[in-house]
C-alpha cells in the first residue's frame, strides 16, 4: 500500500470544481510531481494534503494516520501533520535570524535544548547555512532564503516534504543548481517529495513519477519518460515538450489528406477514428524527405545554435521543424517534403470552451 493516499478527493470553491475525484498513491521516498497550467488544481491538491484546505469529498491518509475525511468530518490541522513545506515566496521570517527560523519548529515541539541545537545545526549544515546562521534572512539572496526555508522544513526530519513551486522565484541558473540540492537532500534524509510546478523540465529532472492535471482532472500519472513518449491524450502531448498538430481528413479507411491542401499522408491511423483527425508530432521527430510525403514551403529558417528551427507552411496550416545544425535543409522560400517519423493520432480538436 502506498504511503500517502488520496481517495476520491474532491474540492469545490463555490460552483467551481477545483479538484475532481482524485485517486493517488505516493510511495515512501518517492519524488512525485504535480504538473499543469495555472488553475489546474495542483496547488489546491497540495494544500489539501498540507491541511490548509478541507475536502468536499474523499479521504487523505499518510501511513496508518488519517489526515482528512469528509465522511467522518475529520480534519487534522496543518500544525499537527508533521510535514515539511517550502513555499514559492520563501516565507522566511524577517524578524528572526536564520538560526531562529530553523529552530522554530523544533522549539514548538518542546524538545530539550541540546536536541534543538543539534538538529538545527544539522539542518543548517546540510543546507550550507552555518556561516550565516546569526544573520537576518532578509540580508540573504533569493537562493539563500530558499535554503533557509528548506532547512526549516528539514529540521523536524519529516517523512513527507511538500514543495509548492519552490524554485520559480529564483534565477534560471540558480534553479538548476537548487534542483540537484533538493535531490541530494532527499537521498540523504530519505523523505518523500510532493512537488508542485508548472515547469515541465523541473518535473522531468526531479521526479520518479509525474501527474499531469488539467481543470481539476488527472490526465496521466506515469514516469517522466512515459509521459513524454506515450502521452495519454492530446493535452499531455501538447503540454510536455514542443508539439505540432496537423488537421487531417479521411474518407472511410482511405488515405489521409492534410486539411486545406498539402498532400496525402503515407502513414495511416488505426481504423475507426472517424473522418476528421489530428496528427501530432514533435518538431525534432521530422526529417526532410523525398516526394510522396507531406508538401510544404519554408517560411522562416532560424539558426538557434545546436539546432536549426524551421517554420513551414503546409497548405493553410503551419508547423515547426527542428533539425541538427549539421544536417542539410532547404532555405527560406523553397518547397520541401516532410517525413514524420513518430506520428500520434488524436480525434480532431473540439472548439475550446
Amino acid at each position, binding site marked *: 500500500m502506498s504511503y500517502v493516499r488520496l481517495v476520491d478527493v474532491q474540492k469545490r470553491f463555490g460552483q467551481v470544481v477545483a479538484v475532481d475525484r482524485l485517486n493517488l498513491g505516493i510511495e515512501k521516498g518517492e519524488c512525485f510531481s504535480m504538473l499543469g497550467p495555472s488553475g489546474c488544481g495542483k496547488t489546491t491538491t497540495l*494544500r489539501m494534503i*498540507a*491541511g*490548509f484546505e478541507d475536502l468536499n469529498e474523499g479521504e487523505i491518509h499518510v501511513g496508518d494516520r488519517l489526515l482528512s475525511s469528509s465522511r467522518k468530518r475529520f480534519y487534522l*490541522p*496543518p*500544525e*499537527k*501533520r*508533521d*510535514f*515539511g*513545506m517550502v*513555499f*514559492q*515566496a520563501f*516565507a*522566511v*521570517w*524577517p*524578524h528572526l535570524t536564520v538560526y531562529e527560523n530553523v529552530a*522554530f*519548529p523544533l522549539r*514548538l*515541539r518542546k524538545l530539550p535544548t541540546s536536541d534543538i541545537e543539534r538538529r538545527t545545526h544539522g539542518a543548517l549544515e546540510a543546507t550550507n547555512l552555518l556561516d550565516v546562521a546569526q544573520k537576518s534572512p*532578509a540580508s540573504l539572496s533569493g537562493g539563500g532564503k530558499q535554503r533557509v*526555508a528548506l532547512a*526549516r*522544513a528539514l529540521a*523536524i526530519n519529516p517523512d513527507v516534504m*511538500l514543495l509548492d513551486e519552490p524554485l520559480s*522565484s529564483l534565477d534560471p541558473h540558480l534553479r538548476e543548481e537548487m534542483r540537484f540540492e533538493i535531490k541530494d537532500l532527499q537521498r540523504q534524509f530519505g523523505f518523500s517529495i510532493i512537488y508542485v510546478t508548472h515547469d515541465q523540465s523541473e518535473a522531468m529532472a526531479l521526479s520518479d513519477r509525474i501527474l499531469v492535471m488539467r481543470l481539476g482532472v488527472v490526465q496521466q500519472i506515469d514516469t517522466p519518460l512515459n509521459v513524454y513518449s506515450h502521452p495519454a491524450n492530446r493535452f499531455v502531448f501538447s503540454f510536455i515538450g514542443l508539439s505540432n498538430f496537423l488537421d487531417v481528413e479521411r474518407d472511410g479507411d482511405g488515405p489521409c489528406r492534410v486539411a486545406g491542401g498539402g498532400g496525402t499522408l503515407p502513414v495511416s491511423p488505426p481504423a475507426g477514428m472517424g473522418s476528421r483527425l489530428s496528427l501530432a508530432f514533435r518538431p525534432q521527430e521530422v526529417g526532410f524527405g523525398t516526394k510522396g510525403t507531406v508538401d510544404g514551403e519554408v517560411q522562416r529558417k532560424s539558426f538557434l545554435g545546436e539546432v536549426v528551427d524551421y517554420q513551414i507552411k503546409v497548405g493553410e496550416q503551419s508547423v515547426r521543424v527542428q533539425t541538427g545544425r549539421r544536417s542539410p535543409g532547404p532555405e527560406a522560400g523553397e518547397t520541401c517534403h516532410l517525413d514524420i517519423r513518430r506520428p500520434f493520432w488524436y480525434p480532431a480538436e473540439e472548439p475550446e470552451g
Partner: protein
Amino acid sequence: MSFSLKKGETFGTAQIILFLSIAILVIVVAVPVLLIFANAFWDNNGNFNLHDVMNVLREPDTYQALLNSVIIASGTTIGSTTIGTFFAWLVTRTDLPCKKFMKAMFLVPFMLPSFIGALAWKMLLSPRAGYINRFFMDIFNLDEPFFNIYSYLGIVLVEIMYLFPFVFIQVCGALERMDPTLEESARISGAGLGTITRKITIPLVLPSILSGALLIMLYSMAHFGTVAVLGIENGIYNIPTLIYERIHQSAGSFESIRTGTVLASVLVVSAAFIIWMQNKILSKGHFQIIAGKSFRPMELKLRGLRIPLLVACCTYIAITIVLPTAVIFLVGALPTYGMPFTWENLSLENYKFILFDNQLTKDAIFNSVSLGLSAALITMFTGVMISYVIVKMKVRGKGVLEFLGMLPFSVPGSVIALGVILAWSGKFGINIYNTVWIILLAYIARYMAFSLKANSAALEQVHDSLVEAARACGATMWQALKDIVLPLVRPGMLAAFFLIFLPSLRELTVSIMLYAPTTRTIGVAIYTLNEDGETVVSAALAGVALVLIITGQSIINRFIARTTKG
C-alpha cells in the same frame, strides 16, 4: 555645439526654478518657524537667554500645560493603538460578519472633525446639562453626573474615537499585504493560531503599529480642538490651547508672545523627535513582507465569539459615530439647548438662520470655501513645482529644498499660526494681521507638506526615460513637461487639491489664532458660537459643515474609484 548650448539653457531654467522653490518655502515656512525660535531664545536686547526660557517653562501654568500634553497624548496613543490594532486584526484575520462594511465604518472618523465630535460629546455628557447625564440622573435620582466629560479621561476618550483610524488603516494595510505563506509556514511547522499571532503576525506588523502610534502621538500633542472644547471649562490646558489662551487674552503683549514661542518651540522639537523616531522605525524595521501570488490568509474562526464581537463592533460604531453625528443635527434643530427631542421642538429654523439670515455664519461659510479653494489651488501648483525639483532635477542645492520640504511635516498648526503672526504683523514692513490674507498664508504653510507628498509620489511614477523619449523626439524641455509630465502627474495634483481643500473647510487650530471679526472661518464660527452659549446655532453650523465634508468626501471617493479603475 548646439548640445552644449541646450545644456546651458536648461541649467539656467533649473537654477531659476530651484531659486523660486527655495524662496517660497523660506518665506512661507522657514521664516515663521525661525522667528519663533528667535523670539523664544533671544531677549529684547538681542542676547541669547536660556535663563528666561527656563523661567517660562517653570511657571506653574506652562509646566502644567506641558505635562497635560504628555498625559493626554500618552493616554490617547495607548488607547488608540490598542483599539486600532484590535479592530484591524478583527476585520482582516477573523471570520467576523460584514467585515467590508465594518472596515468602511471604522474609517469614517477620519473625515469627521474631532472638535465637532467634542462638541457633540459635550452636549451629551457635560456634567449638568448633558443629555445622557440628565437621563441617568433623572432615572436613578443621582446627585452626581453619570460621567463628567470635562476631565482627562473624557478628553482622552474623545480623542481616541477620532484618532484610532491612523493605527487601524496602517495595520489593516500591513495585514492585508502580508504574504499569507509567512503564517502558513509557521502553521506547518507546528504552531497553532495563538502562537502564530504572538510570534509571527504581531512582530511582523509591529513597525506599522508603532508608526501609526507615533503619528497619533504627534497629532495629539499638537491637537487644539478637543482640549479647547472639553478642557478649558475645568482648567485643563495643553500646549496649543495655552498658546491660544495667552495670545488671545493679552492682545500680543511681549510676555504672552514669549510664553507662546517657548511653548511652540517645545512642540516643534518634540514633533521633530517623533518624526525622527518614526523614520528610524520605518527604515530599520520595515520588513519586506509583501507577497506575490497567494491564497487568502487564514481566518481565525471566532465560533461562539462571532456574534458577541459583531454586536460589540456595531455598538462601538453606534456610540462613537452615529450618536454624536445625530446629536449635532438634532440639537441644531432645537430652539434652545436642553429641550427634549420631540417632534414639536424640532425645526429647520436654525439651519435657515445660519444659511440665509445671519451675516456672521454666512461670512464664515464664504470665507472657509474661498480660503480652502485658494489655498488648495496655490499649494497644488507650487507643490508640483517644488516636488519636480526634489524628485527629478539634478541640481546642486536641492538638499536644502528637501529639508525645507520636510519641515512643514513637523510644524503643528498652532506653531504656524504664531509664526505668521510674528512674521507678518509689521516686522518686515508688511502688516496683514487681522486680514484674510494672513489666514491664507498660514493655510499654505500648513498644507504644503500634503501637496509635496502627493505630488512627489506622482512624479516618482513618471520614469525619466519618458521625458528623455520626448526630448529625443525633438521636444524642448518645456514641451516635454507640458505634454508628457503634466498629464501624467495630474491625478497626483488633483489628489493634492482635495487633500487640502477638505481639511481646510473644517480647519480650526490655525484660524482661531488669526481670525478678526469679519474673517471667521466655519471652524472658528462653530467654536466661538459655542463659547458664547449659542449652542443650537453652533450645532446647526456644525451640521452644515458635516454635510459639506461628507459630500466632498464622497465626490472624491467616487472620483478616485473611477480613476483607479480606468
